[in-house]
C-alpha cells in the first residue's frame, strides 16, 4: 500500500514550497564599469573600437570595447546590463586597468548583475538558440552562480573541454534540452577550427607517449599569422625565383655616408637602399604592385607603393607598411626603417600600421641565411626576401679571365603565378638587380 496521507504532513504543507525571495528591489542604479584585470602583466590597452554608444541599451556581458593589449586584441564584456548613460573612453585612447569605461543605468542590483559572464540559457530560450558557435566562446559554466546549470553531465562537459566547444551555445537534443555527447561532437564538427584541438590547460607541463611536453596557448597574433599563412599558401600558387645582386658598389656608397647625416640614431642601411630600388622597379612593373580581386575577376593596380616590411617582434611576425615608399627619399626611407625597428622592440604597432601594403620585403640578412621561399602576404602578389650579402668570387673581364671578390646580395622573389608569369617576374628581378648594381640609376629615380 502506498504511504498514508498524514495530518503531520498537511500541517506542514503551508511551508512546503517556500520561496527564498531575496531579489533586490527593481530600482535603477548607476554603475561605473571599469576595465577589469585582463591577466598577468597587462596593465593597459588601446581602445581599438568602441562597440556601444551612449543611450544604447546593453545586455549583461555584451562586449563594449575592443582593446588591443600587448598580447592580443580582446573584446571586453560588461557584466552589467542596462542603458549606457555615459562613455568615458574613445577610440585610440590608452586606458588603464581600473579606469572607468562607461556608466550603465542598471535595472538590476550590482550583486546579481556582476555574476560570472555566462549567458543565461533557460529551457524556454533554448529552442531559439542557434547551434552556431559564437565568435568568442566563454569559459564553461561550471556551477556558475546566478545562472541555471547547462544541462550536460560530466562526460559531455569533458568532451566539450577537449573539443573547445562552448556548451552555452549548444542546443541539446535530449529531454529538457539535455546536451548529449553526440550533441557536443556535432557542435565541434560544425566548428572546424576548433575540432580536434585540445583545449586542455595551456602552459601546462605534461606527458605524451614519447616524453615530457609543455602546452602553451597560442597568442592572438600567432593565430592571425597562422590563418594568414594557410590562406596564402592554400589559395596562391607560389613560384619563387632566386638570384643575386652585386651590391659591392652600393655598399661602398652606403659606407661613404658619414654617421649622423640622416639624423641622430638613423643609420643608412642596405634595406633602405633596396627599398628605394624596389619602389622604383614596382612603378615600372605595376603587376607586381597589384592585388587580385578574385570574386570580381579583376586585377587591382595600385598607383601608390606601400612597402610592407616584415619584422620579427617579441609578439611574432608583423608587417608594418611604409606608405608611398616610391615618393620617399633614401633618407626618409632610412628614417622609416629606424622608426619601425624602434617600435618593433616595444611591440607597439597599431592596426592601421599593418594595413594597406602593396608589396612586402622580408629581410633575413640580419639573422643570416641566403635563400628561402617566402609566402606572399595576401592579397599582395609578390614578396621579396633579402638574404645576407656575402663576398663571393665573381668572374669578370672581356675574356672571363678575371676573378674578383664581390659582395653579393641573395634575392628570393615569390610571386602569385595566377597573375604574374615567370617572364614578368624575371624581368622585374633583372630590373631590380640592374638598379642595385648601378646605384647611379637611383639618383635618377624620382623624387
Amino acid at each position: 500500500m502506498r504511504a498514508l496521507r498524514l495530518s503531520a504532513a498537511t500541517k506542514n504543507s503551508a511551508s512546503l514550497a517556500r520561496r527564498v525571495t531575496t531579489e533586490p528591489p527593481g530600482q535603477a542604479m548607476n554603475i561605473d564599469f571599469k576595465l577589469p584585470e585582463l591577466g598577468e602583466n597587462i596593465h593597459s590597452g588601446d581602445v581599438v573600437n568602441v562597440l556601444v554608444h551612449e543611450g544604447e541599451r546593453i545586455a549583461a556581458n555584451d562586449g563594449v570595447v575592443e582593446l588591443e593589449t600587448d598580447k592580443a586584441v580582446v573584446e571586453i564584456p560588461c557584466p552589467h546590463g542596462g542603458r549606457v548613460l555615459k562613455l568615458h573612453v574613445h577610440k585610440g585612447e590608452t586606458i588603464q586597468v581600473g579606469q572607468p569605461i562607461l556608466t550603465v543605468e542598471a535595472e538590476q542590483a550590482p550583486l546579481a548583475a556582476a555574476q560570472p559572464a555566462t549567458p543565461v540559457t533557460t529551457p524556454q530560450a533554448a529552442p531559439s538558440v542557434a547551434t552556431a558557435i559564437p565568435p568568442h566562446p566563454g569559459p564553461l559554466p561550471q556551477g556558475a552562480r546566478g545562472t541555471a546549470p547547462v544541462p550536460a553531465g560530466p562526460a559531455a562537459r569533458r568532451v566539450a573541454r577537449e573539443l573547445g566547444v562552448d556548451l552555452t551555445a549548444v542546443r541539446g537534443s535530449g529531454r529538457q534540452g539535455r546536451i548529449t555527447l553526440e550533441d557536443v561532437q556535432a557542435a565541434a564538427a560544425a566548428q572546424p577550427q576548433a575540432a580536434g584541438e585540445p583545449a586542455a590547460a595551456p602552459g601546462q607541463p605534461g606527458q605524451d607517449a614519447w616524453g615530457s611536453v609543455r602546452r602553451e596557448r597560442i597568442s592572438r597574433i600567432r593565430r592571425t599569422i597562422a590563418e594568414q599563412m594557410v590562406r596564402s599558401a592554400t589559395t596562391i600558387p607560389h613560384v619563387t625565383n632566386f638570384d643575386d645582386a652585386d651590391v659591392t658598389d652600393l655598399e661602398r656608397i652606403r659606407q661613404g655616408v658619414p654617421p649622423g647625416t640622416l639624423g641622430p640614431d638613423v643609420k643608412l642601411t642596405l634595406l633602405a637602399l633596396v627599398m628605394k630600388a624596389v619602389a622604383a622597379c614596382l612603378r615600372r612593373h605595376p603587376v607586381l604592385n597589384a592585388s587580385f580581386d578574385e570574386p570580381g575577376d579583376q586585377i587591382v593596380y595600385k598607383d601608390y607603393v606601400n612597402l610592407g616590411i616584415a619584422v620579427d617582434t617579441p609578439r611574432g611576425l608583423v608587417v608594418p607598411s611604409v606608405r608611398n615608399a616610391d615618393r620617399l627619399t633614401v633618407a626618409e626611407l632610412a628614417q622609416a626603417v629606424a622608426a619601425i625597428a624602434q617600435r618593433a622592440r616595444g611591440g607597439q604597432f597599431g592596426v592601421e600600421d599593418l594595413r594597406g601594403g602593396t608589396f612586402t620585403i622580408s629581410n633575413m640578412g640580419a639573422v643570416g641565411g641566403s635563400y628561402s621561399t617566402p609566402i606572399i602576404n595576401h592579397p599582395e602578389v609578390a614578396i621579396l626576401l633579402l638574404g645576407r650579402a656575402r663576398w663571393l668570387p665573381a668572374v669578370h673581364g672581356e675574356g672571363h679571365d678575371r676573378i674578383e671578390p664581390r659582395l653579393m646580395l641573395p634575392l628570393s622573389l615569390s610571386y602569385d603565378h595566377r597573375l604574374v608569369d615567370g617572364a614578368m617576374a624575371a624581368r622585374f628581378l633583372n630590373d631590380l638587380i640592374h638598379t642595385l648594381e648601378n646605384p647611379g640609376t637611383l639618383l635618377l629615380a624620382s623624387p
Partner: protein
Amino acid sequence: MDTQLVVLGGGPGGYAAAFLAADLGLKVALVDQEPRLGGTCLLRGCIPSKALLHVAKGMADARHLAEWGVRYGRPEVDLAAMRARKEKVIATLSSGLKQVAAKRKVEVIRAHGVLEDSQTLRLTPSPPTPLPQGERGVRDDRLRFEHCILATGSRPATLPAFDVASPRIMDSTGALELADVPESLLVVGGGYIGLELGLVYAALGSRVSVVELTDSLLPGVDRDLVKPLQKRLEKEFAAIHLQTKVVAVAEKPDAIEATFEGAAEKKVERFSRVLVSVGRQPNSDHLGLENTRAEIDPRGFVAVDAQRRTRDPHLLAIGDVAGQPLLAHKAAHEGKAAVEALAGQAAAFEPRAIPAVVFTDPEIAWAGLTENEAKAAGRQVEVVQFPWAASGRAQSMGRTEGLTKWLVDPPSGRLLGCGIVGSGAGELVAEAVLALEMGASARDLAETIHPHPTLSETLGAAAEMFFGTATDLYKPRRR
C-alpha cells in the same frame, strides 16, 4: 631525475593520484611518513569514526525496538574488543592499499619529505625507528622529480585555551583511540566531528556536553536540516551550550575544570575528558614551500587552479592542503584531475556539487547550492521539500523526523542543490549529486521512477512539489 612524479601524502587524495598516475604509465613515488597508507581518512578519520558510529547506531536501533515490543537487556561493552574490531577495519583497508600500490609498481617511501627546491624533496626518516620487514624507507636523502603533487592533508586545529598538557584533553585522533568511556565528556565545537564523536561516547554511556561558539550546531548548515538532529541530540546529550565559549580549562586531580562564558551566566563545570574539535588546519607548513614558487593563502591553503597546479610549474596540490571543503572524496577527485591534466588530458576539477555528509543519527547530507549560500548570494531560488512523515518507508522504520529538499532555479526548473536530513541521508544524497552533475531538472527527478517503499522516493516526491503537488502530499494547486 629520480622519478617523474612524487606524491607527498598517502591519504585518499594522494593514493588516488599516485595509482592513476601509475596506470597512465608514469614512474611514481608515494611518500608518506606513516607506517601505513590511508592518511587521516583511514587511520584516524572517516573510517574509524564510521566504525564506531556503526556501533552507536546499532545500540540506538536496539533500544528503539522497545516501542515495537522488543526489549533487550542492558548492553555489555567490551571496549578492548571494540577497539580491536575497529583496528581490523583499518588494517584490512590499509594492507589492501599497500598491495594495490605494489601491483601498480608505485614506490612507497616511508619518510618525512621537505621541498628543498621545486624539483627536490629531502627525505628524513620518520619516525627514526626500524622499518617493518619488506618496507622501503629512505632510499636516498634526496628525491629528484619532474612533478610533485602535495597531498599532505590537514590536522586538528587547536585553541590556546586548551594548551594544557593533560591526557584528559584530546583531539579527534585521541577520541578515536577509545582509551576509556569517560563518565562525562565535554565536546568543544559543535561541528560534525564533535557531534559524531559525541554521539559515539553518549551511546557508550558518557554524559556528553557540547559547547558551540555560534548560535547553532553545525554552523553554516541550513537550519531546517539541523533541527531534527538537534532535537535528537538534546535527548542524547546532557547539555548543549550555544553561543558559549570555554574561556579556561584547568587540570584537577580527577577531572578537567572548564569555565564557560556565554549568553547565560558564567559557569564552571568538571569533566572526565574534553574533546577539542574546533576545525582543522592545512598541513602546508614545514613542507619547504618557501623554497618553491608555490603560494599559500592567508588561511594556509596552497593556491591552485582548476588543474590543481600551484604557482610553481613543478608542483600541484590536492585535498585538504589545497582548500575547502576538507573532504576525502573531494581530495580523490582532485588527485585524478591533477594527474590527468599532467598527462595532457582535458581534465579540470570543476564539480557542480561536492556532497557533504554528517554521519550522526539522523544523518545530514547536502550537495550543490544551500539555502544559506543562496541567501548570501542574493540569489532567488525556489525551495521545495518533502517531509518524511509522508513517506511509507520512514513510517515503517519509525524515523519520520527526516526531510528532503531541493533548491530549484525558478524560471528553468533546473536543480541547484539538495539537502537531506534523516536516516541514511548520506546514501540518498548520491542520487542528488548525479542529478546536479547532469544538470537535471525538477521534471527529470519527478519522472524518474523510484522504488517503493524506499526513502529514495522522497527525492522524487520533493521534486514533484516544484509542480505544486505530490502523490503523498496534498497541496492546493498554485500554478
